[in-house]
């Protein structure tokens, strides 16, 4: 129940993010969720798209450094304490969240979040055992 995240290495310079996004737009790849982690001199753009393999090919062809990572997308109850419960379940199973971010759109009545774990298989299982809906690749395409 993992999905593919595409990460892109970006230098902190004007217009760079826009270039990468329009490249995807022109190729008809839709961004579903994204986040940018930054340091003083560079940033890492991480995103979930509807066509990850097309996006990866596109970056390779254009000489942009990118890689693919398995992440888990799960629905989290959109209410006070919703996320806290999920995180507690994970921590009770010794699962560490490397980072997480939210989807652009809301999915059903719940919030949809992307989690990066060391062990995505095990994490997905724990989430399901705790009654959360984990979205697969097909589910992402259907958003």
């Amino acid at each position, binding site marked *: 129940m993992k999905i593919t*995240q595409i*990460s892109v*290495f*970006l*230098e902190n310079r004007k217009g760079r993010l826009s270039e990468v996004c329009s490249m995807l737009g022109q190729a008809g790849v839709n961004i579903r969720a994204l986040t940018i*982690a*930054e*340091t003083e*001199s*560079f940033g*890492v753009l*991480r995103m979930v798209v509807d066509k990850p393999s097309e996006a990866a090919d596109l970056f390779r062809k254009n*000489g*942009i*450094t*990118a*890689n693919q*990572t398995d992440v888990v997308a799960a629905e989290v109850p959109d209410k006070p304490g919703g996320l806290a419960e999920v995180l507690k379940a994970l921590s009770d199973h010794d699962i560490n969240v*490397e*980072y997480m971010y939210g989807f652009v759109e809301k999915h059903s009545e719940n919030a949809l979040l992307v989690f*990066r774990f060391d062990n995505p298989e095990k994490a997905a299982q724990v989430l399901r055992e705790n009654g959360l809906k984990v979205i697969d690749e097909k589910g992402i395409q259907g958003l």
Partner: protein
Amino acid sequence: MIWNESIETMPLEDLKNIQSDRLVQLSKYVYENCPVYKQKFDTHGIAPSDIQSIDDIVKLPFTNKMDMRDNYPFGLFSVPRTDLVEIHVSSGTTGNPTLVGYTRDDISLWSEVMARTLCCAGAEPEDTVQIAYGYGLFTGGLGFHYGSLEMGMTIIPTSSGQTKRQLKIMQDFKPRILCCTPSYCLYMAEEAKELGIDPRSASWDIGIFGAEPWSESMRGEIESAWDMLATDVYGLSEIIGPGVSQECTYKDGLHIYSDVFYPEIIDPETGQPVPDGEDGELVITTLTKQGIPLIRYRTRDIVSMTTEVCKCGRTSPRTSKIKGRTDDMIVVRGINVFPSQIEHVLLGIEGTQPHYQIVIDREAHKLDQVEIMVEVDEKIFSDEIKQMSALSAKIKKEIEAVLSIGVKVHLVEPKTIERSMGKAKRVVDKRAL
């Protein structure tokens, strides 16, 4: 004053006789004591008996930095290790540094040529000298120390750095002589102004600056900032350290002590001598050294040379300031840096050779800054910032360990480093020297 008047003002014919005698001795000495030279002579089809005068020097094979590297650590030495009283290292092109060693007599020689150097710049035995070259493995500090000791000056061995303390010591003890890199001297002028000290009122009258290339315009800047005489010193650790040549107060070329360090200027492509006054590579033979004597050592420095006798009375030939290099070595804050050293580090960290570029810059009156740009490809890219930061920190740490100077590491996107004819440009030197 002239430190060793009988040698330094010797008629050219007598000088040539001394050089001839010494070269004959040297050829025999290295052939008998250094297996690497014996083999070099044999392969070259030359015997020590073929060397009858200094003019025969052209028959001898050259020595390169590669010979130093291939025979690291002690292969090129002509004495047993127990005869060495001091060793120093400088940058090597990859992996190992360049090792040099001195016997007790070699240290006496170094003291002698450095005393000549200091006097050539105008120092007197009753002067106080502030030595702000680094002490330690770098030859700068100790070379000046030995020469000053030989002359009987009062030495303040401040070594490099700690600018505030350098300035306080200058104000309190009033040394007339300053020895440091020229860029550090300009940097100190800025610091002085910030501390409310007028550099023109400083006690330093004479500066002996070297270990890095510098221009006439920089000399003008130093002289007007400090109201002092700024002279150029040249040397390299393979030959002795500082003390190979020095400008006199006429500032019209560097007097090279040719009775002990015999200079030739060659075309770096053909190895043939170039006429007086033309640019070429400086090649030096150490005529009297014992520990690690070198025959026709290729310095890779481009200079021109004149044998015309100087107004100061010294009869030694004079070379120009360094006009360039025949290899890709760069000098940063007095430290020699080879791009291959950085390549070696990156290869060790990543298992492959990433594209990189070294950018050297110097803001006005500041010290040199080195930035290493490394292109991030898929092999080293991670979606986790902490891993990317750790990679950047590791590259920085390992490069600093090899170069002994601080650097900034900048991770950049692929294809952002300028390539000319498909080959990446390794060094961008933005300094106005």
